[in-house]
């Protein structure tokens, strides 16, 4: 009970209270900074746990030959290859202590090559696929079914056009200085209706965060400990 419940609750209370106080009283601000550095240290362990978890989950899938286990194999090969290339700094030409002290991104290393020629194109490709799905969805789902949908559709049209040079072209009749070109209208939508909505959402989120944080700090919400039964 003491280790599983009381100590975690106490740590949460102290850390949370100190971080709040550090914003209110300058005397405690250095404590707030120290706690932020603790986060950096804890993150190192989180990375190790994350790596261990990845190996466990995908290792299990491969061992049990579940459907799609081949993807897990590719994932683990990629993980271990990147990890070992980064740790041993292959391709950097360094040796001994210098090799261990150098960062993985040391000039000329294969680690940089993995990033440049594998990770970067793959990440960009995945994101670029969105354009195709957006186009397909816009054809099938973006319909003026009711008043709200029509307002959204008109706003989207103005923003889409206003965000390209074509918006300036086709509103030539208004004159670039008139303030009534499509880019101006797009800017108006962003500056007024969007701004009002965003502020309302932000205030709502902030109040929600305050309430949730207080519940966690005071030990009312214990979901983060894995159970709220007690």
């Amino acid at each position, binding site marked *: 009970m003491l280790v599983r419940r009381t100590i975690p609750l106490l740590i949460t209370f102290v850390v949370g209270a100190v971080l709040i106080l550090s914003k209110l009283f300058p005397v405690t*601000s250095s404590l*707030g*900074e120290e*706690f*932020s*550095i603790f*986060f*950096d240290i804890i*993150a190192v362990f989180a990375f190790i746990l994350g790596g261990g978890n990845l190996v466990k989950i995908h290792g299990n899938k491969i061992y049990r030959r579940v459907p799609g286990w081949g993807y897990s194999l590719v994932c683990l090969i990629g993980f271990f290859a990147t990890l070992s290339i980064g740790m041993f700094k292959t391709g950097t030409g360094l040796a001994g202590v210098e090799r261990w*002290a*150098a*960062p993985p*991104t040391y000039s000329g290393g294969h680690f*940089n090559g993995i*990033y*440049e020629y594998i*990770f*970067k*194109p793959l*990440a*960009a490709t*995945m*994101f*670029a696929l969105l*354009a*195709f799905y*957006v*186009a*397909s969805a*816009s*054809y*099938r789902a*973006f*319909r*003026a*079914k009711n008043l709200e949908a029509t307002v959204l*559709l008109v706003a*989207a*049209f103005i923003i*889409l*056009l206003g*965000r*390209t*040079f*074509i918006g*300036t*072209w086709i509103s030539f009749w208004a004159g*670039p200085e008139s303030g009534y070109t499509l*880019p101006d209208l797009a*800017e108006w939508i*962003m*500056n007024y209706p*969007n*701004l009002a909505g*965003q*502020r309302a959402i*932000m205030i709502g989120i902030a109040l929600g965060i305050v309430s949730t944080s207080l519940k966690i700090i005071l030990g009312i919400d214990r979901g983060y400990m894995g159970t709220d039964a007690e």
Partner: protein
Amino acid sequence: MSFYEKVANIDRRVIFLLIGLAVAIPIIFTVRFPGFPTPMVQEIFDLVENLPAGSKVLVSFDYDPASEPELQPMATAWMRQCIERGFRIYIMALWPIGQDMARLTVDQLKRDIAEKERLTGKKVPFEYGVNYVDLGYKSGAQGVINVVLTDFEKMYPTDSTNQALSSIPMMSDTKSLKDLDLIISISAGTPGLKEWIQFGADPAGVKIIGGSTAVQAPLLYPYYPKQLSGQLGGLKTAAEYEKLMGDRYPQYSDIKDNKGRIRMGAQAIAHIVIMLFIVVGNITFFIDRRRGKRG
């Protein structure tokens, strides 16, 4: 099957093909459109341009390759402007991959500088530790900002090359965020520009500008103009900034150095194709509805 039915039940592979062509053709043939800088873009450009030489500017690379097409043109343009104006550049990253984005940008700048030196025969000062420093990535998001707000060395005992911060000349008079003249955050999400405003620039009393993706930009409007001096939102504004840079510094006016302007052609055509899809989709929707009512 009638023409209407064919259009209403169009195979999505046809949509994919059309959008693929709309993106590929303008890039292959370098389709360009004239850029008219919007007021906020001009405002940001003037703000950076009017800082005195030797100003200390922190550039935070808070994005990854997925957002590179939109954000990299902004990063390159700002870094070029910082060099032209003779600023001292402090590079940071709140995203792990941001450190690599910064490295690629610095490599690009080195190529720019070599070209400029070749053409003019003059040496351009861009020495590590004197004109720029790369502090690298640290995990902790706003926690990192919280610490560097009062002490860089506390969070970064060494830079990204494991060199002690105390041994780097340009850090000798820069102890915290409060010693900077401008913060630039180029971000694709969280942590990013919003965290820099809330935990860094505002408490430090330092001006901040930023670049964000078109999707993220609307979320940051509530901070403008009091807490955020301006933001470039999406590729269009990046292209406009490149235009301003090219006009002010002609060595950057060559289109091959302006990735934002090249990509903007593709985005403009793709937007039109998407709008045509929406129009056609709605026409078929209304025809369907009318037929339904009659039936």
